[in-house]
């Protein structure tokens, strides 16, 4: 340990001792002054502090909001259609709970100040009042009904079936990264079996090469999406539970080994547009793993690029099917195109 560290420890210890001595002395003083007097004084001071806490606390909440608001996504438009609905839900909930929060906290601390003990105060013996109790059963129940109704309306829209024209992409998590698979020209993701996974043989996703649908499946290193085109993610995990967390799209879905999950949405804002909106040139859509998955959990990042159809097509044209890498000898003989691939497989 260094001298500064010893120094800090000594300082802390000294503060402890001083506080403790003051506290002990105050006890003696209260005995001298008379316990009653000390009790009254404590009450006055602490009742006043309750009020101070209320006022400063509300002010601090305001200040905290102004400091942090711009660092959150509250002021950033949601990047997906579902996200917009979730934002609506959030504001509805914020208004209702915020209102209740302010009312109840003000009452609490105000009562604590207002009804502090005095020599003359007579308490109001008030054991119960059925009407009042009914009132504050019914009113919260109504407020919550509203919240449940809105919540479920959005929930069913978000979790409903994906539109038919949705692009399908498979996202697979493993310790500690994400893999993406596009279905290629045939729009069909080929069959898969975890027992076929073999990274050394260029088959990290366990694609079954006997299934022709696999031969044009692409395996790029980034997830590219088309703006305003619905996308359905088929989410898998190879080892432990992960979670596809998309903060800007306001969505999340677990990746569970053995149980594929799905999630669909329509991206609304391209990466380029979002750079302008946020004023951050380095902005990228990130996939954050949101389920504790091991020591590298914090680094399990994926990149999503949202772009126009043209840009997407151009990017897509550059990608090579994984099959070409896994079976170069077969693939190179075959002319590009699914039909030829099929013939080849049949020949084998």
């Amino acid at each position, binding site marked *: 340990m260094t001298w500064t560290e010893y120094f800090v420890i000594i300082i802390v210890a000294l503060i402890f001792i001083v506080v403790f001595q003051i506290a002990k002395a105050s006890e003696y003083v209260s005995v001298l002054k008379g316990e009653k007097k000390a009790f009254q004084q404590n009450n006055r001071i602490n009742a006043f502090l309750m009020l101070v806490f209320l006022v400063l606390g509300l002010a601090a909440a305001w200040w905290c909001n102004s400091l942090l608001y711009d660092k959150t996504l509250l002021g950033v438009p949601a990047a997906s259609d579902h996200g917009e609905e979730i934002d609506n*839900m959030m504001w509805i909930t914020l208004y209702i709970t915020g209102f209740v929060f302010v009312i109840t906290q003000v009452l609490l*601390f105000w009562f604590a100040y207002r009804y502090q003990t005095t020599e003359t105060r007579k308490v109001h013996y008030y054991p119960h*009042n059925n009407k009042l109790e009914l009132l504050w059963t019914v009113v919260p129940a109504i407020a919550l009904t509203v919240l449940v109704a809105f919540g479920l309306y959005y929930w069913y829209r978000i979790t409903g079936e994906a539109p038919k024209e949705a692009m399908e992409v498979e996202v697979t998590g493993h310790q500690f990264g994400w893999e993406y698979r596009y279905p290629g020209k045939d729009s069909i993701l080929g069959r898969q079996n975890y027992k076929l996974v073999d990274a050394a043989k260029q088959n990290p996703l366990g694609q079954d090469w006997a299934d022709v649908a696999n031969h044009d499946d692409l395996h790029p290193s980034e997830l590219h999406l088309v703006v305003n085109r619905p996308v359905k993610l088929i989410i898998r995990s190879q080892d432990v539970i992960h979670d596809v967390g998309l903060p800007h799209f306001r969505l999340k879905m677990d990746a569970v080994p053995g149980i594929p999950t799905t999630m669909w949405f329509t991206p609304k804002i391209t990466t380029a547009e979002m750079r302008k909106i946020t004023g951050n040139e380095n902005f990228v859509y990130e996939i954050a793993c949101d389920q504790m998955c091991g020591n590298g959990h914090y680094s399990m990042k994926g990149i999503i690029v949202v772009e126009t159809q043209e840009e997407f097509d151009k990017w897509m044209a550059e990608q090579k099917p994984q099959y070409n890498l896994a079976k170069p000898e077969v693939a190179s003989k075959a002319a590009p195109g699914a039909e030829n691939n099929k013939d080849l497989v049949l020949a084998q």
Partner: protein
Amino acid sequence: MSNEAVIQHGAGTHEVHGDHHEGHHHHETFITKYVFSQDHKMIAKQFLITGIIWALIGGAMSVLFRIQLGYPEATLPWLEDIFGHWAKDGRITPEFYYALGTMHGTILVFFVLTAGLTGTFANLLIPFQVGARDMASPFMNMLSYWFFVLSSVIMLSSLFVQTGPASGGWTVYPPLSALGDATQGSKIGMDLWLISMAMFVVSSLLGGVNYISTILNLRTKGMTMTRMPLTVWAILFTALLGLLSFPVLLSGFILLLFDRHLGTSFYLSDIVLAGNILPNEGGSAILYQHLFWFLGHPEVYIIILPTMGLVSEVMSVNARKPVFGYMAMIASMFAIALLAFLVWAHHMFVTGMNPFLGSVFVLLTLLIAVPSAIKVFNWLTTLWRGNLHLTPAMMFCIGFVSMFISGGLTGIWLGNSTLDLHLHDTYFVIGHFHIVMGVSAFMGMFAGIYHWFPKMYGRYMNNTLGYIHFWITMVCAYVIFWPMHYEGFAGMPRRYYDYSNWESFKQFVELNKVISFAAILSFLVQILFVFNFFYSIFKGRKVTTKNPWKSNTLEWTTPINPGHGNWPGEIPEVYRWAYDYGKDGVDHIDQITPIGENESKEGH
């Protein structure tokens, strides 16, 4: 129910005992008095002190990982001096960070706020407040404590094994927790964790059965169920929750042990780990989550219900006014206890569960807000037009209500599956549950400790230190957890070791420093509290009157330092409820005072 008979029987057998107590009939050795004690008061103290030790360990862990979060770039050689390769070059390693977080959660949730809290106040208050000589089965009670110690020792030992303790989060979801190759903490540390928790469940059940049977069978004459103080009601519901849900947790853990060691596939399927293809097929990782949260959710009520009881009681005493809506308080606790079993899957909205099933859980979850709201409004009305004695205990009651409101309202956010899609597993969740079941529960527990300290030790705790403790805790709690909601609004995930590589989450560097600073400060203040606690046991101001708070409940009719059996003579008979404060202009009328002729009919 033949209450009378039971009570007379109970009183009869114990009386002999009680009468002789003043003599030297009992030969108590150090061992039977302080170690293998069967006296409920001593067991309560044992639970409390063990809980305090665990709280210090668990709190210190949070300080360590807050150092990492607040100062990720800092190199602190003293960390390496203490922790060796776990803090190589003075920086906490990811393994260490995750182990700390996991242990912090486990320790605080189970060892402090379940065993430390219920163990203390159930043991202390049930016999005292229902008018019993001791628990229904003092021997089982002793076992309950010693199983807790056994569990503690095993958990503690897991901190010292080569590969470290469990590190997959306090919920230990498989497959991460099932596969030793997935993370270091899932090796022997995980086995110790599971065995320790199994012992913990045994301890909980032994305690719970005892609490329930004592409350139902050993009430003194006249102590009908609806004359019991709310503390006892709260503990009754807590014990019922634990009794019905802990076995499910244990079953989940046993299946996990099978998966780990016997090659079963309850939770495992289709796994390729570090290039190895595992043979397990057909299991469901989600099954574990159902089993876990079937306890896990009632667990948060197991933590918060007893403090609701403590706060209701302490608040009423110090407001010099009956608790408002006694029956509504019981009914709402009953509703909370019942609903607690029907909401567990709200922790699993994003696991890919059936959306319809999800919507049922949304409805039931938000339904819990109704009884919670009733309780809050009832507490507010209890304060209204009272004559508030702002003792440290009362301060903590007010702090409890403030925290419960803040944390309860954010629960309405997270219980709504639509919002959970965005906020799940972000710092919003951390802020929410630390406020509502961490800080709230601690505030309620502190209220209980300051209030019943004179009954436990015949001395007072230092008031000034109590006030300092309260204010710094209160301010720090909000400084720590309020801004975390904003981090949640940025989508910032929890359980990250470092955020600096993330374009989306790296903007909170300054804030994380502030939070870490407040966390360290509040930890130091808790040490001050612990010091006050132990100092006051030996040197505190002595209690000179039997009933220092002018309270109505039975424990204050016992001698200042009650012996074994609690009451020297007969157990007093009870004539009224516990909350006649300020009735007919009389400051307080204790439960053993018969109803006067001219007394008004108001009240309960």
